[in-house]
């Protein structure tokens, strides 16, 4: 209200505040785009060859799955250092169950996920009900489950997994609709559907905001964002259709992203996770059963680690004791690059997935350029540091504490 308004006059019409563009969310999308462009130029176009795009998904599926579980752990203010070891152990159990016990592939998958859930319940028990910090519980878990993997595999490897099992990580949907000009039609159709769904969903949620008279981002940046995202999806599937079609793992990933976005944004469980990360005491004093929420966060992380174990074992075509090394660090890095706050309370599934893709593109680009593994590690470390520094800088500028 301006100071020149005479007293007693009605205040000016309620002005909606200028929508503050969420720099962090856009920042990470822009960072992904810049990194893709940069490596596309540096690799003289090899980064976005259809085969490489396909590998980007199949090679990084495990990080993306783990990052989805990890973002929930981190929003609640915890950490999970054990997921790499859990991936290895679950992979070993899945391989043993098909190869030695003769279980069918689907039973092995279910068993793997159950083992993951059990591991999660074990760790959740110590964190939630005994009150040991998750850092310690999962550090112990990192050792325990790596040790058990070595026991199970007795130092060797198990190869020769059923074909259906390996297809989860390294297979494609059959080309039901045939090919058109050498391209898989099914993949193109799925891409078009996904792009349409994205546009529809965004337009609908904007309409809801309008109906509730809540602040909305400016129309131009809204359509720019949707347009670029939809085009990216179409271009992505265009490239995939030129290779072997739709990786099965891509469907699985899409489902996980949809389900967990819904879980975090629309369910009581998700709301309680944000509430606890935002202010644990306030959540307790509002009647949130914080122990049970913590417990189930870890059970869920275990389930997703089990799934990641299936996926990475399937992709590798066998179980080795050294599988899953540093996976926890990749997942944690993805979550923080994706905009989660170290203090908890902030983070999104989509952010974590984009963070995972940033790491994936870096990995792939640097590999194509045949950068030494030691330097790859160094560069990834710097990217993580800069991403979080950028976040903190942003918050300070916004006048946060």
């Amino acid at each position: 209200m301006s100071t020149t308004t005479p007293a007693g006059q009605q205040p000016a019409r309620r002005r909606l505040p200028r929508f503050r563009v969420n720099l962090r969310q856009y920042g990470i999308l822009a960072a992904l785009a810049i990194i893709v462009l940069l490596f596309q130029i540096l690799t003289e176009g090899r980064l976005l060859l259809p085969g490489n795009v396909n590998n980007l998904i199949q090679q990084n599926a495990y990080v993306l799955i783990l990052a989805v579980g990890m973002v929930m752990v981190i929003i609640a203010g915890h950490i999970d250092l054990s997921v790499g070891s859990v991936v290895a152990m679950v992979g070993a159990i899945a391989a043993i169950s098909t190869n030695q016990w003769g279980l069918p592939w689907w039973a092995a998958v279910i068993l793997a996920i159950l083992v993951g859930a059990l591991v999660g319940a074990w760790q959740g028990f110590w964190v939630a009900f005994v009150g040991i910090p998750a850092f310690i519980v999962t550090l112990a878990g990192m050792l325990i489950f790596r040790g058990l993997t070595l026991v199970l595999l007795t130092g060797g490897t198990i190869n020769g997994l059923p074909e259906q099992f390996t297809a989860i990580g390294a297979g494609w949907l059959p080309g039901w609709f045939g090919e058109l000009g050498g391209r898989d039609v099914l993949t193109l159709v799925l891409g078009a559907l996904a792009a349409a769904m994205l546009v529809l969903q965004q337009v609908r949620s904007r309409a809801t905001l309008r109906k509730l008279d809540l602040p909305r981002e400016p129309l131009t940046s809204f359509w720019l964002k949707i347009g670029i995202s939809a085009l990216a999806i179409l271009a992505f599937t265009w490239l995939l259709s030129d290779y072997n079609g739709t990786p099965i793992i891509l469907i699985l990933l899409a489902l996980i992203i949809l389900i967990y976005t819904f879980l975090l944004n629309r369910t009581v469980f998700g709301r309680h996770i944000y509430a606890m990360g935002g202010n644990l005491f306030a959540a307790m004093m509002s009647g949130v059963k914080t122990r049970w929420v913590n417990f189930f966060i870890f059970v869920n992380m275990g389930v997703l680690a089990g799934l990641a174990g299936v996926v990475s074992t399937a992709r590798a075509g066998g179980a080795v004791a050294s599988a899953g090394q540093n996976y926890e660090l990749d997942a944690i890095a993805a979550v923080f690059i994706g905009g989660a706050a170290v203090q908890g309370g902030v983070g999104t599934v989509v952010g974590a997935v984009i963070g995972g893709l940033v790491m994936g593109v870096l990995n792939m680009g640097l590999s194509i350029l045949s950068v030494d593994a030691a330097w790859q590690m160094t560069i990834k470390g710097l990217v993580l540091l800069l991403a979080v520094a950028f976040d903190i800088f942003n918050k300070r500028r916004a006048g946060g504490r």
Partner: protein
Amino acid sequence: MNNTPILRMDNIVKNFNGVTALKNVSLEVTRGEVHAICGENGAGKSTLMKVLSGVYPAGTYGGNIVFEGEQVGYRSINESEADGIVIIHQELALSPYLSIAENIFLGNEISTRGVIDWNRTNREAALLLARVGLDENPATRVLELGVGKQQLVEIAKALSKQVKLLILDEPTAALNDEDSAHLLTLINHLREQGITSIIISHKLKEIRQIADTVTIIRDGETIESFSMSEPDATEARIIRSMVGRDLSSLFPPREANIGEVIFEVRDWSVYHPVDTTRLVVDGANFTVRAGEIVGFAGLMGAGRTELAMSIFGRSYGTNISGTVLKDGVEIQTRTVDEAIRNGLAYATEDRKKYGLNLIGDIAVNVSAAALAKLVRFGVIDRHREYKVADSYRAKMNIKAPSVSAITGKLSGGNQQKVVLSKWIFSGPDVLILDEPTRGIDVGAKYEIYGIINELAAQGKAVIVISSELPELIGLSDRIYAISEGVLTGEVARADATQERLMHFMTAGKDSAL
């Protein structure tokens, strides 16, 4: 005792972001005396001591400080301690895993070129412990000591620094009777050794027992200072000076429509969660009627918040005993969730720490305590959530551009309205509001009083805990006074005066109802 002042503070003024904490405080402390400073919560006592000791560095306040005949302006605690001014805070500042001796000489180690001389350290610590009358091995870790003994270690630490002026902030607030008595004897003893003490206390009995002079501060101003040997130096006079301001704040008019007793607490006792032998609330009995606003008056540490939090889902304390009745039927309130389901609501004293998700928007905060109302098949109806929040925004006059505004960015008054919205939305029959207007400007206070009146008019039982006596008197139909964990008085609105309440609030635990 000679009569030269060891300390003179003249016309001290201190502002925090435009809020005046100290308007004009002057203090003169005679060498070798015990000088008591009295005042209500928030009167400015602790701020004054922080100005003196350099916690607020010279230059951030106005006025003059003269210590031992020299003008001083300390920029840090280190500087004031070097001159022999040592302050012992209410929350003790010892490192629990270090030994008594290590704590005494922490930051002041007896060493040669960085290597500690343990023999001398332990020997000198033992001498200091003898001086404060603490019979413990200097190698004992501090966490093994009770609060009373820790207090003595703090004093020993002060003595090791050649203290000339010892400042004790509410030294007996956390102590039991025996430890308190011991401490007072020790202060007396130190006086004989020529050490001057300033003691900040609410307990008038103690002041009468030990102080030579008393200075009373109210609303950031020195009201008066007099010798306790004067014939009219009575407790009544101290109380009058502590509370004697005008009832300047206004309260919205209200017509009380009081019904049956709907909330009753019987024989409620609570022990301290860490010091499990200390009774924090001792056999409290009280009732609240439908449509009634009941105030709880008590000084800091009297057990008001502890009483409320222990009832609300056992959020405080151990060994809780007693019964809670609603509409004459016993109800359980073992968890916060259970308390909410049984129709209780508790708006916490510290809204930032315990009340709000400050990084969340208004909508998620309003729905936080009653999310179940907005859920179908486990899915939150976000549409309705925003509508509900928006209706409260309008009703409560929460000044924010929309309900997607982040609560951490709102003013204190608006944050408090969000907290109240949250609890009103949970649909309670009994609301406990702990310091509902703390840190809120006058305009917003008036609005919140209006909201509280409205809740009572709807037939709810409302309990208001407040440190501001005029607020309690202006708002409540009936007021309970609590002192040292015991309900010491029950005053109807018509009979309520600040003097009367203060009398009960300082009565001590022997004056149970």
